[in-house]
C-alpha cells in the first residue's frame, strides 16, 4: 500500500482506496510505486528533490457516475484528489498534484467525443479527448471543421482550455477557454451541474449560447479547484476555402514599434484573422558572444549597436508570421491592405510562405510544415531541440508574461529578461511574442529544467526572478507552473491579496473538505492554509 496523504491514517487511506476500487475496479486504481511514478511531473523543476510533488495513488474512472462516487468517498475521508484530463500540461506541472499525497483522478479513459454538430460547428467532449483524437475523428468522418490546437499538440481540449491555453487560428477559437460553450461539472460534494444553456435540459443551444440565465460561472472553473469538469462544448472553425500564410520582416530592432502598431490595428479590424507571432531571427538560438553581450546588457546597448550587429548578420531583426483564412478573393484583399498598412516601414519585406485550398488529402495534410496554423496537432515544436547550437535540457517551464502589443514594451522585456539570464550566467532564450489574445502579447520564455538538483536550483532562481521582476515592470504572467502558483498569485496581490481571499472564500463554500486539487493556483482549503 502507498503512503497516505498527510493527516490521513494508513487505515483510513486503505479503506478509502478499497471503496474506490469497488467503484472503478481494481485494475483502475494504481498503487504500486512504479505505476504511481508515472504521475510525476516529467519536467519538474524539483526532480528528485525532497520537495518534488508526488501522488500517493491514482484512480481512473470511466464515467461521471464513477467520479461522483469517488468524490463522495473522498469527502468522507477528506482524501485530496487531483483531477487531470490528458495529463499533458507539461511545462505547467504535468500530471503531478500540487499537494503531495493527493490521489490523482486520471480522466484519460473518459475520451468520448460525445457530439460534433457540423451545421452548428460545435462539439461536446469528455476530458480525455486529446487534440490528436479530435483531429482524427474529424478527418476520419470527413467533417470539414477544424479544431484549434495547442502547440505542442499532445494535450487535450478540456485541460488546455481550463488552464486557459491558446493556439493559432481564428479569433473565436484560439483562446481555448473563450472558445468553450457550455460545461458540466462534478462539484466537490458530488453534485452535478451543467452551466450555461445546459441547465435547461431541453435547450438546443448548449453549445451555441454561452451564458444561460443568471450569473455566468464558467470562469471560476478555470485555473482553479472548485470542481471537476466532465464535459465541455467548443466552437469549431468551418474549414475555409483557402488559406495564405505570410511573413513580414523588418530590418532593425526598433522597427518593431511601427510593426506591432500596424499589426495590432490590423488584428483589431479583423483584417488579420489569425494569431500573430513576432520573433527575432537575430536573437534566435545563437551563442555568439557579441550577441550575448548585447542581449544581456540590460538595455545599455544602443539602437546603433544593435543595427551594426544586425546588418552584419544579413538577416532581418524581426519576422512576423500569420495566416489568412477564407475566400481567396477576400484573402487577397486582406493581404493587400496589410501591405499598404505596413509599407511605410523602411526595408519591410512581405513574403507568402504557403498557400492552401481545402480539403487537403492525407498526404498534403501530412506534409504541411506549420501544422498548428491549420488546426493540425503536431509535436514538431520539439524539432527546436535538434537545431544547431541548441542547449538540450530534460524539459522546460514556460515563463509567460503578458505585455501590451507595443514594440517599446517588447524591447524593454527582452532587455530586462536578457539581463536576468546573463546575471545567472545563462544565454537568454526569449525570441519573441505571440498574440493569441486580441489585445495582449504573450512573451514565452523557455526556462530549462533538468534531472539534477544543482541545475534546477538555478532554474528556480531564474524563474522566480523573472516573475518578480517582470511583474514589477507591469508584465505579470497569464499562467504558471504548479510549483510556482503561490508565487504567481502573490503577483496579483492588490489590496493585500483581496483576490486570493475571495478565491479561498469560494473554496470554503464550494469544497469545505478541500478534496479537489488543494493548492491549485494557491487556493487552499481551510484546514491546510499555512501548513502545506
Amino acid at each position, binding site marked *: 500500500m502507498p503512503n497516505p496523504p498527510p493527516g490521513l491514517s494508513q487505515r483510513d487511506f486503505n479503506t478509502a482506496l478499497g471503496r474506490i476500487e469497488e467503484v472503478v475496479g481494481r485494475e483502475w486504481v*494504481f498503487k504500486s510505486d*512504479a*505505476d504511481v511514478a*508515472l*504521475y510525476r511531473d*516529467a519536467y519538474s523543476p524539483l526532480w528528485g528533490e525532497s520537495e518534488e510533488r508526488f501522488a500517493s495513488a*491514482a484512480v481512473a474512472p470511466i464515467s461521471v457516475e464513477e467520479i461522483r462516487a469517488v468524490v463522495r468517498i473522498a469527502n468522507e475521508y477528506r482524501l485530496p484528489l487531483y483531477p487531470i484530463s490528458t*495529463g*499533458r500540461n*507539461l511545462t505547467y506541472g504535468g500530471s503531478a498534484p500540487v499537494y503531495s499525497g493527493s490521489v490523482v483522478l*486520471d480522466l484519460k479513459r473518459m475520451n468520448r467525443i460525445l457530439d460534433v454538430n457540423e451545421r452548428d460547428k460545435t462539439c461536446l467532449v469528455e476530458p480525455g479527448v486529446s487534440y*490528436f483524437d479530435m*483531429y*482524427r475523428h474529424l*478527418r*476520419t468522418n470527413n467533417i470539414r471543421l477544424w479544431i484549434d490546437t495547442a502547440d505542442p499538440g*499532445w494535450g487535450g481540449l478540456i485541460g488546455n482550455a481550463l488552464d486557459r491555453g491558446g493556439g493559432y487560428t481564428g479569433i473565436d477559437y484560439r483562446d481555448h477557454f473563450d472558445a468553450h460553450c457550455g460545461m458540466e461539472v462534478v462539484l466537490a460534494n458530488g453534485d452535478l451541474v451543467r452551466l450555461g444553456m445546459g441547465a435547461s435540459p431541453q435547450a438546443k443551444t448548449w453549445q451555441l449560447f454561452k451564458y444561460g440565465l443568471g450569473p455566468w460561472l464558467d470562469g471560476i472553473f478555470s485555473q482553479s479547484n472548485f470542481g471537476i469538469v466532465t464535459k465541455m462544448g467548443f466552437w469549431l472553425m468551418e474549414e475555409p*476555402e*483557402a488559406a*495564405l500564410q505570410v511573413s513580414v520582416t523588418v530590418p532593425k530592432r526598433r522597427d518593431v514599434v511601427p510593426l506591432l502598431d500596424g499589426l495590432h490595428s490590423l488584428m483589431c479590424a479583423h483584417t488579420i484573422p489569425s494569431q500573430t507571432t513576432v520573433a527575432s531571427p537575430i536573437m534566435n538560438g545563437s551563442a555568439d558572444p557579441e550577441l550575448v553581450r548585447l542581449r544581456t546588457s540590460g538595455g545599455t546597448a544602443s539602437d546603433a549597436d544593435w543595427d551594426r550587429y544586425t546588418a552584419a548578420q544579413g538577416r532581418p531583426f524581426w519576422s512576423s508570421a500569420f495566416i489568412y483564412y477564407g475566400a*481567396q*478573393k477576400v484573402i*487577397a*484583399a486582406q*493581404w*493587400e491592405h496589410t*501591405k*499598404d498598412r505596413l*509599407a511605410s516601414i523602411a526595408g*519591410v*519585406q*512581405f*513574403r*507568402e510562405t*504557403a*498557400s*492552401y*485550398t*481545402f480539403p*487537403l*488529402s*492525407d*498526404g*498534403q495534410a*501530412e*506534409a504541411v*510544415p506549420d501544422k498548428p496554423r491549420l488546426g*493540425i*496537432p*503536431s*509535436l*514538431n*515544436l*520539439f*524539432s527546436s*531541440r*535538434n537545431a544547431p547550437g541548441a542547449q538540450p*535540457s*530534460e*524539459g522546460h517551464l514556460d515563463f509567460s508574461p503578458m505585455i501590451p502589443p507595443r514594440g517599446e514594451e517588447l524591447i524593454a522585456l527582452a532587455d530586462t529578461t536578457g539581463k536576468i539570464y546573463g546575471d545567472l550566467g545563462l544565454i537568454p532564450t526569449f525570441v519573441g511574442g505571440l498574440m493569441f489574445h486580441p489585445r495582449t502579447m504573450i512573451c514565452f520564455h523557455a526556462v530549462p529544467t533538468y534531472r539534477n538538483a544543482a541545475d534546477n536550483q538555478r532554474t528556480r532562481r531564474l524563474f522566480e526572478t523573472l516573475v518578480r521582476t517582470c511583474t514589477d515592470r507591469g508584465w505579470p504572467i497569464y499562467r504558471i507552473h504548479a510549483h510556482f502558483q503561490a508565487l504567481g498569485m502573490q503577483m496579483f496581490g492588490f489590496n493585500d491579496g483581496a483576490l486570493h481571499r475571495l478565491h479561498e472564500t469560494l473554496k470554503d463554500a464550494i469544497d469545505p473538505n478541500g478534496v479537489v486539487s488543494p493548492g491549485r493556483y494557491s487556493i487552499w482549503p481551510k484546514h491546510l492554509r499555512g501548513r502545506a
Partner: protein
Amino acid sequence: MSTRRIAANVGAASAAIVGAVVTVVGAALAAIPFSPAVAQDAPFPIAAWSRTTAAAEDAGAPAERGAAVFNNWCSACHSRGPLNAPGTTSLQNKYQGALPAALEDRTDLTAEVIELYVRNGIATMPFFRKTEISDADLAALAAYLVE
C-alpha cells in the same frame, strides 16, 4: 484566378515560395503565388491516425495492434520523417547513422528496451501512463517494433 487553381501548396513548393519576396505594394491579386498541388501522398502517419481507434488498439494480432499503438502515440515524433520526426532527428544526431534513426527501421530493439523508454522517458520525451499506453498496448507495441 479560379478557385480550382488555388491548391494545396506544401512540401517542395512551399520551399520555393519562402524564397519569393514581394515588396511591390499594390501588386495585382493574381500575383499571389497560390500554387498548384504538388505534394505526394506522404507514406503514413495522418492517414494511419485517421484509422486508429480504440477498437483498433483493442483487437487484431499483436503486431497489428502494436502498429495502431505506434501510430497513436509514437509516430508524431518518431515517423520516418523528414516531417513529424523530431524524435527521429534526435536519434539521427545521437547515432550518426550507426543505427537507423527511425524506430520502425531498427532491428535491435527488445521489449525490455521499449518498456524502459515508454515508462521512463528520455530527455524531452516524457513517460506514458497506463491509462495512455496500457501494459497490453506496450506488449503489442513491442511485438510491432521487434518483429
